[in-house]
């Protein structure tokens, strides 16, 4: 009977080790205090109606940022734990068990790729793309909420092991076979891996389809493909790759699931199974995935460079073609991840050459950025500083990538710390810096006030310096023969000083993160002074700057006509008059995405613990909710032109009021002033509004 109701769950599944207790208690406390705060402010209805069930891509974008930001902290904590262990392990045993160490690096990889990079990128695509192409919403607003909530379900799933089971996969982030089969990974940790990636991966595919529809079908009249802003282009390329490879991931995970649950022999060592096939399939998705997260960042940097150099993008067409080239070539290079695994010399050479080819379009991009800066009137605001850090670090990452693409070299360096340093150069210096640049660039649009420049600069420099201190030793260690995923090494190797240095670098990066948090709080404290009353604080060129910040729910009072690439720049030059107001159709809010994702989560949970009834009930639930949604024919409402004019008038009045506080000539708050004023401000926050 207990079997039936609870499957494999029993008392021993509850937290009993220090890290699961810390995790589960910590998460519970966080959620409880959040709930208490919301109840105290009587904000539940507001939260539900204005945020959780919203279909507004701008709000969904912000929710992506919030969840992705929390996950960044979680993944960062993992990283610090790994670093500290390695630094200690040279003289003694470190403080983690081997099993635990393996679980942490697996979780770190999964979280950073799926739940941080993907989330933050989807955040930008949601918020910025419709604004850039002159659209009011997405092709399918419902699919978008569904994608977001499936992502959240994946996030919850990957953190579930703190509460039930106490173990996560210990296989590395890609769960190579046969290690991920039942024979070698019998525990539920592997199943959590399967279901958190599967559920969020399906959400990603939905997002991909939706944004392709949106970008290809909903651009403002006159905006031909070659007039699209670079970030939209980067997103389009990225989403094209999403729909080309995420189905592969989904199916591969399904096959792994069959092997584990039904005893099939796809990737097993017995019964004729073929583990090598898993390696191929997962990298056919895995390599393109690294470019899926890279391309939107390319786009962000192109925007930033052009805005802060006061020049149109130089070689725009080559820039676009380069992005298309990168995405196409990167579908054909996956084998470079396993040169050492038995392919013959001809195959290795072919994939090696294909891999090196990527350097050509990538260089074309770099040339485009540098040429845009050439003779420009550059202003070194934080987004621009991120760009400079990026160009250098990404350059190193690209060059080491080309080195690794030479098979004989790779035979030496494969799975060494050199490889780790390579991809962190790209993933941190490339993807993450791009995201940070984007955050400080678009913050005024999204928040209505720009971020503190002074503290922002400190954060950038901590990240750049920290990065080099942390990862240069890893390049060296890799050349000295240190492999990745190492939890013990002998003191006689002489590696410890390098590991310690790397750990110190990690701490400097952590300081950068703290400074970023401080930057955000300081900006909120000074939000009146930093307010963006123009809608266009950087004197930028693309449509998202053409309306007041933050944009109204309908984005545009009237859809602009696009005649040239930097339309907004042209509008400013021509002193274009605003268009008359019109009736606006907007999608209604919906909770269907939440319900479906909740069922998807429960189904996954049921699978993990083999609770059959839960799986069945959840799947039936998903079908029923889908059908009900599918036949609901009243998904839209209309805002009349007069209502629009009213809303715009109220908005204009508010902006007039804000103008008296806003001043750009003042120096932003520094750290000392922050430390002096923050406690009082915090105190006031709790006192005032009760």
């Amino acid at each position, binding site marked *: 009977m207990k079997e039936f109701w609870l499957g494999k769950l029993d008392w021993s599944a509850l937290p009993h080790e220090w890290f699961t207790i810390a995790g589960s208690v910590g998460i519970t406390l966080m959620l409880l205090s959040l709930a208490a705060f919301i109840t105290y402010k009587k904000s539940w209805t507001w939260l539900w109606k204005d945020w959780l069930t919203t279909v507004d891509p701008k709000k969904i974008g912000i929710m992506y940022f919030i969840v992705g930001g929390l996950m960044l902290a979680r993944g960062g904590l993992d990283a610090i734990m790994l670093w500290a262990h390695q630094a200690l392990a040279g003289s003694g045993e470190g403080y983690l068990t081997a099993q635990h160490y393996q679980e942490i690096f697996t979780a770190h990889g999964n979280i950073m790729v799926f739940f941080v990079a993907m989330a933050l990128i989807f955040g930008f695509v949601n918020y910025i793309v419709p604004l850039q192409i002159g659209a009011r919403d997405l092709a399918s607003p419902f699919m978008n909420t569904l994608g977001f909530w499936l992502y959240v379900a994946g996030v919850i799933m990957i953190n579930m092991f703190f509460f039930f089971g106490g173990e996560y996969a210990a296989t590395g982030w890609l769960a190579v076979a046969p290690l991920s089969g039942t024979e070698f990974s019998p525990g539920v940790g592997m199943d959590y891996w399967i279901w958190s990636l599967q559920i969020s991966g399906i959400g990603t595919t939905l997002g991909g389809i939706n944004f392709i529809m949106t970008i290809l079908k909903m651009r403002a009249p006159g905006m031909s493909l070659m007039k699209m802003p670079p970030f939209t282009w980067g997103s389009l390329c990225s989403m094209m790759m999403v729909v080309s490879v995420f189905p592969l991931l*989904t199916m591969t995970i399904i096959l792994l699931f069959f092997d584990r649950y*039904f005893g099939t*022999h796809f990737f097993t060592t017995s019964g004729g199974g*073929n583990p090598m096939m898993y390696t191929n399939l997962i990298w056919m998705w895995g390599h393109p995935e690294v470019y899926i997260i890279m391309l939107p960042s390319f786009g962000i940097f192109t925007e930033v460079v052009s805005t802060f150099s006061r020049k149109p993008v130089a070689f725009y067409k080559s820039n676009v073609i380069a992005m298309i080239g990168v995405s196409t070539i990167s579908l054909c290079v996956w084998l470079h991840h396993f040169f050492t695994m038995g392919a013959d010399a001809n195959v290795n050479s072919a994939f090696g050459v294909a891999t090196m080819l990527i350097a050509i379009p990538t260089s074309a991009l770099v040339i485009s950025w540098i040429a845009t800066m050439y003779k420009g009137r550059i202003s070194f605001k934080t987004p621009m500083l991120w760009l400079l850090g990026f160009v250098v670090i990404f350059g190193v990452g690209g060059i080491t990538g080309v080195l690794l693409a030479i098979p004989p070299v790779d035979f030496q360096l494969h799975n060494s710390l050199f490889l780790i340093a390579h991809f962190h150069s790209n993933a941190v210096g490339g993807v993450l810096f791009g995201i940070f640049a984007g955050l400080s660039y678009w913050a005024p649009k999204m928040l209505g006030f720009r971020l503190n420049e002074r503290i922002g600069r400190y954060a950038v420099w901590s990240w750049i310096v920290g990065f080099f201190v942390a990862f240069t030793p890893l390049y060296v260690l890799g050349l000295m023969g240190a492999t990745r995923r190492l939890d013990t090494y002998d003191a006689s190797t002489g590696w410890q000083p390098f590991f310690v240095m790397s750990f110190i670098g990690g701490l400097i990066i952590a300081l950068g993160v703290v400074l970023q948090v401080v930057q955000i709080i300081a900006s909120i404290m000074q939000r009146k002074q930093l307010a963006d009353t123009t809608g266009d604080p950087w004197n930028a060129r693309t449509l998202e700057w053409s309306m007041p910040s933050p944009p109204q729910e309908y984005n545009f009072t009237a859809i602009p006509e696009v005649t040239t690439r930097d339309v907004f720049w042209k509008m400013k030059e021509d002193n274009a008059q605003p268009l008359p107001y019109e009736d606006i159709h907007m999608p209604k809010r919906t909770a269907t995405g939440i319900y479906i994702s909740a069922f998807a989560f429960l189904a996954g949970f049921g699978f993990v613990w083999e609770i059959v009834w839960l799986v069945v009930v959840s799947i039936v639930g998903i079908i029923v909710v889908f059908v009900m949604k599918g*036949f609901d024919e009243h998904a839209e409402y209309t805002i009349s032109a007069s209502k629009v004019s009213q809303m715009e008038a109220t908005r204009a009045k508010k902006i007039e009021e804000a103008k008296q506080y806003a001043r750009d000539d003042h120096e932003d708050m520094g750290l000392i002033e922050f430390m002096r004023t923050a406690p009082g401000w915090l105190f006031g926050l709790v006192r005032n509004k009760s």
Partner: protein
Amino acid sequence: MNHAPTRDEMTHEEAADDRTMFGFWVYLMTDLLMFAVLFAVFAVLLNSTDGGPGATDLLSPQIALINTVLLLTSSFTVGLGLQAVTWFGLTFLLGAAFLGVELYEFYELIHHGHTMQSSAFLSAFFVLLSTHGLHIAAGLLWLGIILIYVLKRGLTRSNVRKLALLSLFWHFLDIVWIFIFTVVYLMPFTGV
């Protein structure tokens, strides 16, 4: 107007339908990629029978031919259904018959001890076939529900659109089946 309306000329609803249609095509492509994985896996594992019987010993092209005829005919009735809705009733029956035959084939295999656990080849066979079968079942469920709503609400704009999407889906499954018929039931016998 004798050319297809451009995006700027469409009404709000027409534009929405146009987007949905396009998005559905993109979805079909993602689904096709999932099948592509299964086909590749099947090709790789075709001879991995672990010493047990292989494709030529176990599979019968005759049964698959019956299924091919059933499914192709059902696709034809879908075409007719877009002219006169009642034809969709026949589609439903033919689809169900297809599933019945497929289940019978599975039953025979399993009954003789050839399960998806027996060998890598059979794993690939069963998963490829049942993924397609599951799609057919989902299509039937979807068709049934739409037909109920057509009875209740008539041929509203949204019902017509749903039927149009369903017909795309059905033809898509038909094409996948042609590939299955070729790759699973014919090629092993020709020794390719």
